[in-house]
């Protein structure tokens, strides 16, 4: 069974997020694994443990920092790592999805995992677009996957606490919201050991596709407005809140 996971590195928000020109100043930020991809790696490894096979992680190296998250994925149980040498920090989701789809095609995947979205651009389109390029079915918002033979049983979450269970013929693309079990811990010793020994396969980007959107401006949010703190006894405060809600037509 060939299991493929598309993973993305995004700027860490533990530090300041400096802006340079019309994008993040990529040279002065650290990069971390997109948190939904931690879920999809775990889900992929769980499927591998249940059915056998190999997990290949693949990502677009847009600024030469992808190795760190590929090593993390290998330490968490992936078997192979591939990076597409995109080297274009401004490549949009459409372009990245095309590059990923072209690279994944050659891996003859039985199942492809993607995180449901990345926390930097919140675009959420990579999974569906890969599926479209590969002509495979796609289900997103998934919270568990089980594979038996040629069929995957997939739980998808809907708003309002509803869920649905699908049986899908493989191959398919899954957008993972949460894995069946919480992501396992990759000890730093193991990550460092992997970093010294692992080989990462490099693939040149192939295929053109773009949403033809241009980023005009990026800026930190402007702090506006103010909070009014009500003071007084709890009864007085409650009365003031009720007045405020009424004045806004909310009560």
């Amino acid at each position, binding site marked *: 069974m060939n299991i493929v996971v598309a993973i993305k590195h995004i700027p860490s*928000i533990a530090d300041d997020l400096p802006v340079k020109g019309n994008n993040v100043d990529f040279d002065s930020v650290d990069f971390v694994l997109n948190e939904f991809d931690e879920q999809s790696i775990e889900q992929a490894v769980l499927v591998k443990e249940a059915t056998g096979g190999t997990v290949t992680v693949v990502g677009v190296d847009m600024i030469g920092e992808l190795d760190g998250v590929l090593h993390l994925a290998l330490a968490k149980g992936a078997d192979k790592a591939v990076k597409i040498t995109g080297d274009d920090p401004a490549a949009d989701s459409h372009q990245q999805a095309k590059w990923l789809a072209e690279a994944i095609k050659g891996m003859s995947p039985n199942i492809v995992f993607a995180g449901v979205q990345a926390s930097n651009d919140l675009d959420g389109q990579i999974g569906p677009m890969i599926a479209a390029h590969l002509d495979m079915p796609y289900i997103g918002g998934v919270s568990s996957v089980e594979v038996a033979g040629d069929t995957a049983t997939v739980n998808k979450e809907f708003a309002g606490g509803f869920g649905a269970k699908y049986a899908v013929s493989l191959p398919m693309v899954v957008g993972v919201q949460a894995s069946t079990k919480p992501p396992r811990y990759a000890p730093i010793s193991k990550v460092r050991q992997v970093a010294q020994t692992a080989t990462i396969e490099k693939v040149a980007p192939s295929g053109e596709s773009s949403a033809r959107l241009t980023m005009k401006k990026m800026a930190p949010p402007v702090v506006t407005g103010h909070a009014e703190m009500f003071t007084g006894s709890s009864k007085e405060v409650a009365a003031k809140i009720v007045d405020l809600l009424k004045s806004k037509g909310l009560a």
Partner: protein
Amino acid sequence: MAAKFEKVKSVEKEHAIVDGVDISGDWNRMFEQRVITEYTPELIEKVADIPGAESFANCYQCAKCIPVCPVDIVGNYGPRKLYRYAQTGMDLTEAPELWLCTTCKNCLRVCPKEVDMIKIMPAAREQAILAGKFVPAELQQAFENTAKTGNPLGQPQRKRDAWIQNAGVTIPIIKDLARPVDVLWYVGSYPSYHPRGIDAASAAARIFSALGIDFAILGREEKDDADSQRLAGEKGLFEMMAESNIATFNNYEWKEMVVTGPHELNAFKNEYPKYGFNRPVSHYTTFLARYLDQLKPLLKHEVNVKITYHDPCYLGRHNGEYEAPRKLLEAIPGVELVEMQRNRENGYCCGGGGGGMWMDSFTAKHTKMRLSEKRAMEAASTGANVLAVACPFEVSRFEDAVKSTGNEHVTVNDILELLDRSMRGEQ
């Protein structure tokens, strides 16, 4: 009066004569076939085979360690018992027992065979973590936070120096100062982020300023020392943080380093030297005790409280500092200092060491009460109304513990806060 037991009649079976002396003993069961219980040494060897954990096999079951083990006092634990459990079928690398030791070092203090839990635990835990075995979820979270954000609380690195705004004195950041300083003050994660830790850090800043000490902090460049993560088994994480911190420390010129916390002291004094960092470091109590003559005139206001002082394991047993904290407390006018029964070398662990700080709910499931609760009760039983501490892990632990044991009348304060109160009066 008839004897309660009839004396067993001895039967002489054999004679042994050595150098003309008959040394034959009475017949006893030693001469008969006995039922021998075979214990498999495999699970003991499994632990002792891990590099660093060899001394596990030294135990000869004398049990000196049991009455001093803080976990045994609220549960069923200690090196002797772990050895026995391993002998009777427990695989330490998979058992909950692997995570209960706080590395407090009280057992090593008394063990005739130098069974060293301070080395055994990190080694066995590391192996369990590397093998993907059970790791308490809370601990895993603290590891991940440390790796991602540079501190176990998961707070953003960019906010590490946010606390200095409200300290009431100028706190220079060494990068901005751009000149050598006498003292590099390593603040630590809890004093930088935890509200009660910030109280102690702010007090320290005011005391250093009042003493005219030429100090600076690292601000956003400071990262967690990660010593407790090391003791909890994450050596790789510790090494990563140590390399980063040592590079930062060496970027600047300073004469000595002062740390707020005993765990940082242990890291920089005893562990970082293995990675090439060899510079003078002291805990703030040791440092301030040197300034006692200048400090005393500043302590103008009476603080009329009865204080009992809790020895942090990593300041006391691990690093031998028992007197400086007491000297500082005794220097405060109005203070009456009383001792708990377990003090100094035999101080009772708060439960926060060795990763215990991040395994509170897990440990609680395997003990009758929290270690911090046991200690809070001991503190209350002295009649003290203040429990003084010198470790940033302890304020929040003990504040919860005095509440949960119905001892709210005992206030928990860092020594720094008490000195500051005496310096400035009640605020």
